[in-house]
């Protein structure tokens, strides 16, 4: 390979990076209390060894390796190693329950699975007999596995040392394999988020990934010395796109947090320059700030509120492309000095140059908040099938109600029914083993059907309404996005999740709301309300009053027909383990509607409470059955006079 040629695959890019950056840090993992580092050279060596080891175990070109675990160096090493051999990796969300794992492995027919630890091994052993294709389980955290003597269990370092031995015998073999890689080869198989159906497996090529990275890097000029914290599941296309595609293409370091619960702290230690996260992360950050500010003393609160007003005003002017007056600039500078600098430091966002949100719509209030602080937060749009994002805000052209304009290389349009279509080098080639789905997702001339409804505004910005099938037609005939109402509700620190119903078959708008256990719990303690469990707290009358005020606030901004007429506080948190959310924590509306049919009936009938029997599954698999009375809270008279 000549130095000038542009690498076509991730392994080729890794090799180029190792040559170019050498001893610079490629991966950092917080472990044993410090950030243990892997240089580009070491990264390449470990990928090579693991790849050769895999080869010795029988991994063939075109094979798939499934990876199941938290973000660790071994995760990405396994991925790139498989790719170096001409194979593809498929990430499985680490918190998936056994049935989901079985479904995906069965679908992708992986022969090798790389898992993190005993917890994941146990999941796989549960279903081992049903996994016909799998030959080996390779684990990289040995704790608790001492007495597991199945011969298909292999330790990660053993594979690496096998590979090292092979490299000593055939030093050129690995390079030859890498050279064989082509841009069109499948690099990863990504599970679609599956809000409406079981996940499908999208085939994403090296070309898809790298062109996506090139597109994004053309918009925002990432540099090798930038830091990135990889804390969202690597099974998610968004994390693949940032960590694997951009990270590899640009050569910036990936930092893996110590434990899921230390992410916030580790994020602060690193102080990343680039961050890509779905709306819930930004919403959580906002509610953390809100709660902490409420607990701060009056001086701090007053100064914070003043600064935020200044910041928001400046953000609004920026959105409107207007310039600030001298005094506004001075005020903003003061607000930055007095509040924002430190606030961002607390959040770990002090060095952020570019922050992105994608995957779902982010509420405008959250968006304004971060821009008020001076975080360059940009909305992007895309989906698994387009390798993450294909539409993005530009630095000087941000409008929070839109998702921006097409990335370099991408074409975006809408068809006559308003469905958004995308074409370009980042678009996938089809679903694995699912020709029907591929046919319906791809048009004959290569457009990806996104299934989302949208339109372009006068500046050419794309505005996404919602999943096409979710858009509701209200009783007065207007079309309305339930997500818009849900986001307004979720702006409240007390609301964790909301599911709004209202279109088509339903005569008026209602909401099923999940309270935020931590924040409402704290509020309850401050208001001398004793509670025991989530269920208990959710049904406290004064908690209902609290949420009622939040709903009133939401309703105030909504047109009459879109106002919430009744709501209820769900007795349990929506959970991905119960299939109520996707693994990326998107609400599965249809499933919820059918699962809580009694509640929906009660919301649309003449009741003040609904009784529900529900089965709760604990982490260890035990279940418990609860019989709960859930109060229905009326807000406004319902149209048609069905009074309650």
């Amino acid at each position, binding site marked *: 390979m000549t130095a000038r040629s542009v690498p076509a695959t991730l392994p080729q890019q890794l090799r180029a990076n190792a040559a170019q950056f050498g001893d610079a840090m490629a991966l*950092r993992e917080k472990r044993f209390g*410090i950030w243990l580092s892997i240089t580009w050279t070491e990264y390449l060596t470990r990928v090579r060894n693991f790849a050769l080891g895999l080869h010795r175990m029988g991994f063939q070109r075109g094979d798939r390796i499934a990876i199941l675990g938290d973000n660790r160096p071994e995760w990405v090493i396994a991925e790139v190693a498989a790719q170096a051999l001409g194979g593809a990796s498929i990430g499985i969300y680490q918190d998936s329950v056994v049935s989901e794992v079985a479904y995906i492995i069965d679908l992708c027919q992986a022969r090798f699975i790389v898992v993190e630890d005993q917890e994941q091994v146990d999941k796989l052993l549960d279903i081992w007999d049903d996994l016909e294709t799998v030959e080996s389980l390779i684990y990289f955290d040995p704790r608790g596995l001492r007495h597991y003597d199945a011969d298909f269990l292999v330790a990660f370092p053993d594979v690496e040392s096998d590979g090292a031995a092979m490299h000593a015998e055939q030093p050129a073999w690995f390079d030859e394999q890498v050279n064989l890689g082509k841009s069109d080869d499948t690099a990863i198989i990504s599970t679609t988020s599956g809000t409406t159906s079981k996940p499908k497996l999208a085939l994403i090529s090296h070309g898809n990934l790298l062109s996506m990275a090139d597109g994004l890097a053309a918009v925002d000029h990432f540099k090798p010395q930038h830091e990135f914290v990889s804390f969202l599941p690597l099974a998610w296309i968004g994390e693949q796109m940032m960590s694997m595609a951009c990270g590899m293409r640009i050569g910036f370091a990936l930092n893996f947090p110590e434990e899921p619960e230390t992410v916030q702290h580790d994020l602060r*230690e*690193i102080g990343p320059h680039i961050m890509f996260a779905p709306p819930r992360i930004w919403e959580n950050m906002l509610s953390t700030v809100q709660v*902490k500010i409420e607990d701060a003393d009056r001086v701090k609160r007053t100064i914070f509120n003043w600064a935020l007003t200044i910041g928001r005003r400046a953000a609004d002017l920026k959105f409107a492309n207007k310039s600030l007056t001298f005094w506004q600039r001075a005020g903003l500078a003061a607000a930055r000095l007095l509040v924002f600098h430190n606030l961002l430091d607390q959040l770990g966002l002090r060095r952020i140059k570019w922050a992105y949100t994608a995957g779902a719509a982010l509420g405008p209030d959250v968006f304004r908040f971060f821009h008020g602080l001076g975080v360059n937060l940009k909305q992007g749009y895309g989906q698994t099938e387009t390798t993450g994002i294909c539409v993005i805000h530009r630095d000087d052209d941000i409008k929070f109600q839109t998702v921006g304009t097409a990335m370099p290389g991408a074409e975006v349009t809408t068809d006559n029914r308003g469905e958004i279509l995308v074409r370009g080098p980042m678009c996938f080639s089809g679903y694995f083993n699912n020709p029907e789905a591929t046919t319906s997702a791809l048009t004959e001339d290569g457009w990806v059907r996104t299934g989302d409804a949208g339109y372009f505004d006068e500046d050419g910005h794309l505005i996404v309404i919602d999943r096409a099938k979710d858009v509701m037609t209200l009783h007065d005939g207007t079309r309305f996005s339930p997500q818009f109402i849900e986001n307004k509700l979720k702006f409240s620190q007390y609301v964790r999740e909301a599911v709004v119903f209202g279109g088509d078959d339903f005569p008026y708008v209602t909401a099923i709301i999940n309270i935020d256990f931590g924040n409402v719990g704290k509020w309850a303690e401050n208001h001398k309300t004793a509670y025991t469990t989530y269920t208990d707290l959710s049904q406290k009358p004064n908690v209902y009053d609290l949420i009622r005020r939040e709903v009133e606030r939401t309703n105030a901004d909504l047109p009459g027909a879109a106002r919430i007429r009744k709501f209820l506080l769900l007795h349990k948190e929506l959970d991905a383990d119960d299939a109520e959310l996707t693994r990326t924590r998107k609400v599965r509306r249809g499933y919820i509607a059918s699962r809580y049919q009694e509640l929906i009936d009660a919301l649309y009938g003449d009741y003040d409470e609904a009784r529900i029997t529900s089965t709760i599954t604990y982490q260890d698999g035990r279940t418990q059955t609860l019989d709960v009375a859930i109060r229905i809270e009326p807000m406004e008279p319902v149209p048609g006079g069905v009074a309650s």
Partner: protein
Amino acid sequence: MATQSGIYHQTYASDMQLRPTTMQRVRLVLVAALLVIIPFVVDSSTQRLVNTVVIAAIGAIGLNVLVGYTGQISLGQGAFLAIGAYSCGLLQAYLNVPWPIALLAAAFISALLGGLIGLPSLRLKGLYLAVATLAAQQIVDWVIINWDPIDGEINGRATDALRIPGNALFGNADLRLNNNDTLFYIVAAAILVVVAIATTNLFRTHIGRAFVAIRDQDIAAEVMGVNLHRYKVLAFMVSSFIVGIAGALLALQSTAISFERFSLSVSIEYLAMIIIGGLGTVSGSIYGATFIVVLPEVLRSIGRMLTGTDAASLSEFNRVLPFVQEGVFGVVIVATLIIEPEGIQRIWRNIKDYFRLWPFSY
């Protein structure tokens, strides 16, 4: 304000540093600069006051090692100071030892005797130990008053005080400490810096941790393998080594020393320093020492401003001042314990936290 994001450690050595943030380092440089500047900007009476503060700070750090860090209450600080002072004085007066050697020797003698005084701690706890150290105080006081070799003659009169010759170094009369406040400051301040750093270091290691463990939960410490006997005596020795240095400096600063400077009320004054400054912290010892030494002077100055210049007013001022000083001393102790039992150090930390956590409160 604090900037902590972007500071991450890739080695334990860097993770275990004392001052990782820029702000902390800037503060450290400022303090160092202040120490260097002092002799250039203050007048001679202030310099003497500063010197007293420095000695008190060293003594308070020593006491804090024992009381604040190790939890062994001592009412015998005066005795430890006396041992240091008289060892140093006697070495100079009788053996003509140059002062640096006398100083060091005094520290070692103090450590040895301190270990001896600490022996009761092996059997006694809490108040019983406190009164046992009071015994040391009384016994040492008695020795000072009644043992002839440590009495001296001043201006031809026999007194209880020991005269300190103030030996010159290298035969150079300018290198005497008891007539050169600036030189004394340089020596004492340097010692303070070394003592402060060494003490801080000590509590980053297993020995210091063992001390703190004994304070927090002695039975658990013992079960974890800490030899209580050895470490309690060691704490007494380390403490009295440092206090001994302070005592020796007291001797080196003066031309004569007598028992009043090492009485029970001195012990109490030092306890007040570490309580007001903050138990179990080096910085607290320094704040407390400064506060307790400077407070009476401040009261005197304020009183002077409020008093007339006629003879009657002055005599009234002189009558009232000591009582006001003592009363304020008592009020400060009581107020500290009731309002902020962790002392000035805690108040300062709260202030720093207020801005470090800005705009949050936690």
